[in-house]
């Protein structure tokens, strides 16, 4: 009986090796199957933390973020040490960052920070908080969060540059109210801005000309249908261009982080 028990334990260890090999070879579907098989047969629950953690990682790699969070939470429940607990909580934060539930990620960062057991891990918490801010498109807050780790942190520069490269949506709209087309020019859309200005000048001339020639009704109709249409269009365009420009700037930085950044990513 004793021999059988030891043999069974060997089988479980072999099974764990098999699952880990599949995981290392990025065969995540098969890895999950084998981890689940191990979990089912491991009645002593010896590997419960490792299994749930790895299954979570597999689901995360397969972009099944809800499932990943579920298994990381199970890992958290089965954690035997503070380190294991911290690691599983950090994985939940990283998964929340990836699935764009940044508010939840930030909330979890705050909770971790308040936990005295993890006082020595503030840097890591701030690092992931910075990433959560990046995915929330709040580059200024991200820069501040990275600065808490190290004033020369390489991501501070990127976050600051991104924030600086962005345009103000309000400013783009306001200058379009004053001079139609100016907002588009401010966001770098010169041709569209000049066209907008031209249409406004022409339709404005027609409106005023109609009033000058005592064709009041013509003036009202052209002013309302043509001039105001172009005037409103210029303001709306300025707003849209500013949003597009900011999105482009953010995406460029995110592409850099995805393809060229060498540090740990969510």
């Amino acid at each position, binding site marked *: *009986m*004793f021999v*059988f*028990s030891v*043999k*069974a*334990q060997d*089988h*479980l260890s072999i*099974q764990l090796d098999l699952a880990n090999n599949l995981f290392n070879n990025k065969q995540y579907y098969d890895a*999950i*199957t084998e981890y*689940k*098989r*191990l979990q*089912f*047969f*491991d*009645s*002593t629950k010896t590997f419960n933390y490792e299994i749930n953690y790895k299954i979570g990682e597999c689901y995360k790699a397969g972009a099944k973020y809800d499932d990943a969070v579920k298994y990381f939470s199970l890992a958290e429940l089965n954690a035997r040490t503070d380190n294991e607990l911290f690691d599983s909580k950090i994985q939940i934060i990283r998964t929340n960052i990836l699935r764009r539930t940044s508010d939840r990620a930030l909330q979890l960062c705050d909770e971790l920070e308040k936990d005295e057991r993890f006082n020595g891990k503030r840097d890591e918490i701030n690092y992931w908080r910075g990433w959560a801010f990046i995915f929330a498109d709040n580059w200024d807050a991200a820069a501040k969060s990275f600065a808490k780790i190290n004033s020369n942190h390489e991501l501070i520069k990127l976050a600051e540059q991104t924030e600086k490269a962005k345009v103000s949506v309000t400013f783009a709209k306001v200058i379009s109210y004053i001079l139609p087309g100016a907002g588009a020019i401010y966001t770098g859309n010169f041709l569209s801005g000049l066209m907008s200005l031209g249409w406004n000048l022409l339709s404005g001339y*027609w409106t005023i000309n109609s009033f000058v*020639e005592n*064709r009041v*009704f*013509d003036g009202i*109709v*052209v002013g309302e*249908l043509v001039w105001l249409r172009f005037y409103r269009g210029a303001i709306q365009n300025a707003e849209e261009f500013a949003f597009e420009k900011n999105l482009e700037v953010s995406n460029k930085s995110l592409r850099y982080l995805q393809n060229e950044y060498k540090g740990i990513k969510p």
Partner: protein
Amino acid sequence: MISKTKPNKKLLITILLIIIPLTTANCQLTTDGNILSFQNRLRFGNYLYKDQDYLRAADEFKEYLRSENNDTVVFRLANSYFQIGRYTEAAGNFKGLFFNSQLSEEARLMFYESIFFQNDYKLFRVLAEERNFDSSLYGKDIERLKYISYFLDNTDLPSENIVLKSFPDSVQSRLINFYQQKKFPQHKSPTTAAILSTLIPGAGKIYTGEIGDGITSLIATALTTYLAITNFNADHQFRGWLFSGLAAFFYAGNIYGSAASAQIYNARIQFNFDKEVKLFFEQRNYFLPKVDY
């Protein structure tokens, strides 16, 4: 004597205390200790099946069935495919239980369900009417499913009495309503809409229920026409032609827009009807009994 036996008892208890946990550990494994044995695959498959991880459960059942044929496992394999939407494979496996199986009746019902949920309702009706795999226990459910299928595709409905008799009294009035809507849909004619807009700009849109759009079209066409005339009268040739072009554009665009609006109206009516009908049957699980093993 007493003093000699006491230590023996203690020793025995100690040995038992050590051995019992060791032997009960890993009790999930069967005696061969091989996690991948067919029996263990079946047990693991059943665990996954209960956990609703049907894709992995199907793999385990398939492996088990290489060693031994078992109707319940075949049923579970088929049902796993059914649950993950692989209806063709589900139907094929349910078919294997039609004869000489205690699950024959349930398999027949599930086979028809698998065909039904493939959304090939014509094939489903052909199979249901051929009655080659008729079920004595679930025949009425299959027949009801056949009548439901008429509501879900573009085939002409049979007579009202035939369709409705399969359904419980509690839903009769709702089904009569669906039947009437399906048989006599409240469609708008694109031709009528276009003709109306040709006569009075915007009238076609009002006919299709787009009252705001219709009035706007009328005003836009009238105003641009008026502006063209006044600019010609004021000898502003360029502006005159510009507004003439705009008026023609609004007029022609409105005729086209009215016909399109009628088509959109019809599509919306159809979409809403399909959605409502689907939701009605889905909420009632298509009046199907729950079958599982």
